[in-house]
């Protein structure tokens, strides 16, 4: 009879033999019980593949194991040290902040880690500092310098993207296996040129395709150890997200401007306020606030949905990733963060970062069926921090 054998007394080796020998078609329950017993004996020793049979898919989320007050101490001590050292320590501070987040983020009980060399970051910053100064203040001294710097950065962007992705992946590890990046600058320039041209030609309507192509490029050239990332998404679905975000803003602006005028005359007629530009002055700010909030919600919507879409169509080797962050929750978190940061004059920033990170990682899932033991280290890579720091300085998003 199927399902009657008790496998709980079996050793792992006996279970393996049983799994190989069993006729799955005839005894599906027994087969499932064997797999369950094997999993129970420890994912560490289990094999992903048994004589060509693929393991069951089992999604597990990432998790974050720390709290805001622990991060606050790290954050403030590092800012203080950066001040005392006149900014030199800021490179070390950056590494420690990242390391804090990576090391407290776990998957299947083991944490991620961040390995960037602070000296490399410091070098990158020293190279970029004159560029940033020229960009921000150049026009005060030499008219046109700001624009010149901007154009230079735009031309370097494809190159910087590759450097940033290489640096970040190379310096990220899980279970002592590094991530890596194989994209080449040449491909990156081709991609920027092609999709940049499409964006311009469509008068900006198709501009999300640039964002889509950039993210796909980063994903498809990433690897964990020797396991390459792959991406199976399409631009149509991605474009819809940005289209709805644009629609949200348009509707918000329309409703606000249309109804504010009505509201003003309504209030005047109900409360019998005589016409005086001062008396209902607050109504001037109302549309600004409402449109601002709509814009904020639309931005969160686009970033959450686009992130979900990209993650959920990504696989590492043959293991898929899923993400199901909720727009409503994220709007709530970001909005309350914003209020708290204002109310505390910035002291809430560490808690704000922890809240967002905790929520985000808890809604990213990886197929860990059969354990995560079968990844092999890839080739070693060297990377400088130029691209990564440029992303920081000029506020470009180089991430997935």
């Amino acid at each position, binding site marked *: 009879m199927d399902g009657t054998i008790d496998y709980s007394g079996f050793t792992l080796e006996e279970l393996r033999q049983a799994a190989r020998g069993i006729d799955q078609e005839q005894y599906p329950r027994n087969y499932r019980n064997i797999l369950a017993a094997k999993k129970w004996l420890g994912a560490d020793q289990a094999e992903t593949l048994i004589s060509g049979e693929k393991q069951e898919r089992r999604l597990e989320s990432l998790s974050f194991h*720390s709290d805001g007050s622990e*991060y606050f*101490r790290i954050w403030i*001590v590092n800012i203080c040290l950066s*001040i005392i050292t006149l900014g030199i320590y800021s490179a070390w501070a950056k590494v420690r902040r990242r390391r*804090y987040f990576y090391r407290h983020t776990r998957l299947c009980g083991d944490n991620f880690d961040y390995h960037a060399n602070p000296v490399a970051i410091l070098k990158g910053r020293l190279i970029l500092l004159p560029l940033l100064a020229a960009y921000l203040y150049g026009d005060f*001294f030499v008219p046109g310098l700001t624009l010149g710097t901007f154009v230079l950065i735009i031309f370097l962007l494809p190159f910087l993207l590759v450097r940033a992705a290489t640096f970040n992946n190379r310096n990220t590890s899980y279970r002592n296996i590094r991530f890596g990046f194989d994209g080449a600058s040449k491909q990156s320039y081709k991609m920027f040129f092609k999709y940049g041209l499409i964006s311009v030609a469509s008068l900006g309507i198709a501009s999300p395709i640039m964002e889509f192509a950039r993210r796909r490029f980063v994903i498809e050239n990433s690897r964990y150890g020797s396991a390459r990332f792959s991406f199976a998404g399409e631009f149509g679905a991605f474009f819809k997200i940005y289209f709805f975000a644009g629609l949200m803003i348009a509707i918000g602006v329309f409703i606000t401007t249309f109804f504010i005028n009505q509201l003003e005359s309504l209030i005047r007629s109900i409360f019998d306020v005589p016409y005086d530009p001062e008396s209902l002055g607050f109504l001037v700010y109302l549309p600004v606030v409402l449109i601002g909030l709509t814009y904020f919600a639309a931005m969160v919507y686009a970033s959450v949905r686009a992130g979900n879409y990209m993650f959920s169509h990504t696989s590492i080797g043959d293991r898929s990733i899923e993400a199901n962050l909720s727009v409503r929750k994220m709007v709530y978190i970001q909005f309350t963060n914003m209020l708290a940061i204002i109310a505390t004059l*910035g002291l809430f*920033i560490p808690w704000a970062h922890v809240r967002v990170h905790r929520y985000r990682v808890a809604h990213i899932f990886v197929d860990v069926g059969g354990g995560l033991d079968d*990844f092999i280290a890839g080739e070693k890579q060297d990377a400088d921090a130029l691209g990564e720091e440029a992303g920081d300085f000029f506020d470009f998003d180089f991430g997935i």
Partner: protein
Amino acid sequence: MNKVDARFFDGKSSRGSDVEVELIENSGIRVAIQGKILDFPIDAISVECPVGDSGYLIHLPNDAVLHIGRSDPMADWCRPFAVAGMNSISLFERRWPYAIAALFVVIASGWWALTSGIPIVAKYLAKAMPNEIEFFLSKQGMNLLDHQFFGESELDPLRQRQIGNLFASMFEETELADRLTLLFRKGNILGANAFALPSGTIVITDELVEMSAHDEEIIAILAHEVGHIDQQHSIRMLLQSSGSAALFVVLTGDFGSAALLGASIPTVLVHNAYSREFETEADDYAYRFLDSQGIARHRFADILLRLEQEHGNGDGSAISGFLSSHPRTGDRINGPRPGQNGD
């Protein structure tokens, strides 16, 4: 028993194993890995400090690592092996007293930078800037004012010429004499007002001329505006505001949206404080000028009081004093206090 549980990763595959690590009399560690006992002398390993309570990382030869949880009571025997500098930083990061001390250092130095450091740097930068920038900014500013607010002056051309001549003769001995230009405009909703553009152009509204009871009052107001130009207040304001935002981003070392939001808070607060300081500087300049020309100080006070009545600000509450961009009129009409005459 110097034994501690650890996770071992060989760096070749993602397989991790639970191992036991034993400390041998300060000479090294002994690890039991997959049935084999391996000894690592101290100089073959390096210990990495925890960040928060993330635990210690021991790097073994050939890219292998041991990860020891901080929660393990034995974990702290790793400390003596770790790099000394990072060890103490890791300690600072975990204890509240250090964090509170750091907070005070950050607040104090931030305060110093906002109130002294940035203004001083901005002053020197403003001096170093080429004049073209001031002309460029002024042209833009004037276009905006003309387009948005001003109307053509309806003042009698004779009166315009009279004030113009007075202005020219009064200020011909100042260093700025050949840059100063006086323009007349109708203020409309800006009412009785005067504006100084960094290039040396001063705009006075018809309403202000009409409000004045004596030509010396107009001179006093113009002297205040010349003070703004002399001290390069527009450029310094621009530099200081962007400088305080940049400072915040650099301090927090954080370039994300949360930091940008945080950066906008001090910017708003200090903008008004900077503005009040500049007004006081310009007042000081005006009083000194009046003294040098033998004009009674109350001329400036008289017109300020009338301006206040028209604009209805400066009610004297602490909040408006802090948040408003002009100093309280009560403070302004008493003139420069002793010791505030410098530059």
